Structure formats: structure tokens, C-alpha cells
């Protein structure tokens, strides 16, 4: 277990050393979203489902900030380690594949939690966002972070250029987050956009987190947690399989 502990320490140390890029920048950008959208649109929309608009958008923005960070952290950490080949130090070490998978996953989780906790404190101070269902919130965040941290590991292993890692972040995750109900309730969308939203996995994660904060969401919390878990488990298993077989890591 010593190797696992040190790999976790290394991945969290990297986040800490680069804290202005890894934590501060995403927090500032999410707070700007809360301020700009909350102030500009809040005056026109006022409430969504009986909740003040500036409060309504907080769970989605926190989810978006955390998932992007979890993914980006691990994709870049693994890709850099492969690119510079210092991943050899880990691959040749007496560690089991599950320990390596877990160690690399922890970095993304740590960074996402640092961002999420900072945003929670700031949002509580700025707009007074409540936490109505803490157990559901913790479960949703845990599943979401496993999903996106593991996805970052997988993409970091498959990527052949830096562009590949940013492509997934900018062309897949960010658009799906934006249309996943971060800024609105999908109930207000006309058909077929409302129905199509239900094929967006981030929609379920946003709603699970929103349920944890506000106690209400567009779909059942169990469905939201079920869909998120149904994605998190196979993606984590995929990352584990890559370290177990050495595929893409060892020629």
C-alpha cells in the first residue's frame, strides 16, 4: 500500500503546486458565471421551480466545474507522464494495477473537491445556496467524480497529442454540460429538445447534484444516480483494464 499512498501524494502534490491553474482559475470562472448569469438573467427569470435563479444555477455550475477539472487533471497528468516517459517509474514499480488506477484517479478527485468545496463556500456566502439532501449530494458527487476522473485516465492513456485531451473536454464535456440543464430546467424546453436532453448523461449528474442541494430536480434522484453509476462503473473498469493489460501503455 505504500506505493499507492505515494502515488496519491504525487498526484495531489501536482495539483497543489499548480494551484493557480488547477483550482483558482476554475473557481474564478464559475463564480463569474454565478455573478454574471445570476445578476443579468436573475432579474428577468427570477425563479425556476420556486427557487431563485441565482441559487438554481449553482449546483449545475459546481457540477460543471468539478467534472471538467476531474477529467482535465487526469487526462493531462497521465498524458504528460506518458509523453515524458516518467510513467515508467510507476509502471515498473511493485504496485498492483488497481493501486495505479486508484492512485491516478485520486488526483482528479482531489482537484475537483478543492474546486467544489471552494465554490460551495463562496456560493453559500454570495447567494445562500442550501444543502437540503447531503447524503444524495455526497453520493452524486462521488459517482460523478469517479466517472470523470476515470474518463480522464482513459483519454490520457489513449491520447496521442495534447489536442486529443482538449478535444474531449471542449467538444464533448463542455457542450453536454451546457445543454444538460446547468442554466435552465429542461422542462421548459420544447419537444424534441426536452426528450433529447434525457440522452445526455451529464443531465442526470446535474440533476442528482441539484437534488442534493435544493431537494428537487427534473428527474428522479434514483434514476439520476443509477445512470451516473451505470456510466462510472464501466469507465472505471476500462481504466483498470488498461493498467492491468498494459494496453496503450506498454508497446
Amino acid at each position: 500500500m505504500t506505493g499507492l499512498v505515494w502515488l496519491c501524494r504525487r498526484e495531489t502534490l501536482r495539483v497543489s503546486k499548480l494551484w493557480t491553474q488547477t483550482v483558482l482559475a476554475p473557481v474564478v470562472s464559475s463564480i463569474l458565471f454565478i455573478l454574471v448569469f445570476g445578476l443579468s438573467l436573475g432579474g428577468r427569470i427570477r425563479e425556476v421551480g420556486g427557487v431563485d435563479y441565482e441559487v438554481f444555477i449553482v449546483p449545475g455550475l459546481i457540477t460543471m466545474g468539478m467534472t471538467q477539472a476531474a477529467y482535465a487533471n487526469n487526462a493531462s497528468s497521465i498524458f504528460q507522464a506518458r509523453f515524458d516517459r516518467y510513467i515508467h517509474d510507476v509502471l515498473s514499480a511493485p504496485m498492483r494495477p488497481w493501486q495505479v488506477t486508484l492512485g491516478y484517479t485520486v488526483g482528479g478527485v482531489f482537484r475537483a473537491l478543492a474546486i467544489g468545496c471552494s465554490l460551495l463556500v463562496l456560493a453559500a456566502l454570495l447567494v445562500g445556496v442550501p444543502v437540503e439532501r447531503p447524503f444524495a449530494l455526497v453520493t452524486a458527487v462521488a459517482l460523478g467524480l469517479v466517472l470523470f476522473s476515470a474518463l480522464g485516465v482513459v483519454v490520457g492513456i489513449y491520447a496521442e497529442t495534447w489536442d486529443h485531451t482538449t478535444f474531449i473536454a471542449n467538444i464533448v464535456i463542455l457542450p453536454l454540460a451546457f445543454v444538460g440543464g446547468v442554466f435552465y430546467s429542461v422542462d421548459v424546453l420544447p419537444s424534441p429538445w426536452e426528450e433529447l436532453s434525457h440522452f445526455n448523461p451529464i443531465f442526470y449528474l446535474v440533476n442528482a447534484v441539484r437534488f442534493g442541494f435544493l431537494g428537487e430536480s427534473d428527474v428522479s434522484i434514483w434514476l439520476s444516480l443509477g445512470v451516473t453509476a451505470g456510466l462510472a462503473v464501466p469507465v472505471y473498469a476500462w481504466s483498470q483494464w488498461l493498467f492491468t493489460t498494459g494496453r496503450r501503455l506498454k508497446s
Partner: protein
Amino acid sequence: MFRDVPALELRGLTKRYDDGTMALEEFDLQIPSGAFFGLLGPNGAGKTTLISAVCNLVRVTSGEIRVFGEPHQSLPARSWIGLAEQDINLDRFLTVRETLLYHGGYFGMREPDERAEELITAFGLEHKRDVRAPKLSGGQRRRLLLARALMHRPRLVILDEPTAGVDFELRMELWRYIRQLHAEGTTILLTTHYLEEAEELCDEIGLIRDGRLIARDSAEGLRTHFGVERLQDVYVKAMAS
């Protein structure tokens, strides 16, 4: 216990890459514990593939690798190997001290601080303790690479062209470290392009070409076998045959 079994034993080791390149074919090799073994061969002969296979960095197509009697994938076998690769592959986010500490941690050391300080002093990196790897000079990086390989006190140290591209002074310095290591009982597998390096350091030399071991003996034995006076001529004859 470790004197009774070979430090490294390869049986029928074959590695065919996905593009069809046969890097190693039915490769057999046994290196006794405590030996200083040199592996000589041209680029593409299979030296680095062999080392990578031993260190679990490539997927072996077939064959068996044992390190002090244990399968090379096993955790004990991994912990007994120290590898300094040919290319500098230091973690860009870590300082000199952290590089050693984290390596020790990955390899199961619970209290790596003292050992890290010992190596920092031994390799003359005291003034660079808190400097990150990208800011070190080429020579300092090469020394750190060797220090990292030795951090967890491996029984088998594998050095893949450790002096490639370094100046004369550093080469002499690295030779001194390596000799001292061998004198302390560590088994060493060295690959090099420099024939004089192999002759100077190694008890025994293996010649590898096209993924096969074509000869192995002491430098003197190789010269006698090939009927020449210089190791350079042995190499030319062996590679041409």
C-alpha cells in the same frame, strides 16, 4: 539466498511488436548474482526491448523472465530491479529530493528521507536539492537518473547506455559510481555502444544482433574466440558474421 539463484534468467524470450517487428526471438540469457554483465549491439538489436521486458515496460509475446528466481511481474521481483533508462525521463513537477522520495515511495520504502539525503550527497546534488528536474544541467539530470535507480537499494541494477552523450569527466564519474555499486555486491546489467566502457567495467559481455544473443564471454574470452586482438574487432566480426 540470492547468491544461489541467477540474478536474471530469460528463457525463450520473444517480443514481436504490433507492427510485426521481431525485436527478440527465443532469447535465452542467464546472469549470475553479483555479476557485471555488458550487453553490446547495434541500434535496433533488441537491447532496450530486452531491458524493457525485464522491467515490465513492454508486453512480452512469449517466454519466461525470472529475477532472482521470481517471475518478473511479481512484486518482489519488481522491487529488486533498479532501472536507469537511456533517455532522461524525470518527473518535471518534482524537485531532486522529491524525485528520490517519490521513487522510494513507489518502490515501497516507508522512510525514504535518509536514503534520499545519502544519495543527494553521494551524487553531488546538495545545492540542487530543491530544484525541479527541468532546471538541472544535462550532467545533473544524468546523475539524478542514476540516483533514482539506486534509491530503493535494488539487487539488480539495469543501466541502459548510462553514459550516452555525456562528456568525459561525467563518464569517469559515472563509472566510479557504477564500480562502487558492483563492489558492494549489486548485480549490474549494462548496455552500451562504447566498447571500451564494456571492456573496462564488465566481467562478461554478451553480443546481441537482430534479437539474438550471438556470443557471450569475458572480453579476453571473446578476443580469443574470434582470434583478434581488440574488442572492436570482435564486435565488427561478430556483427558481420
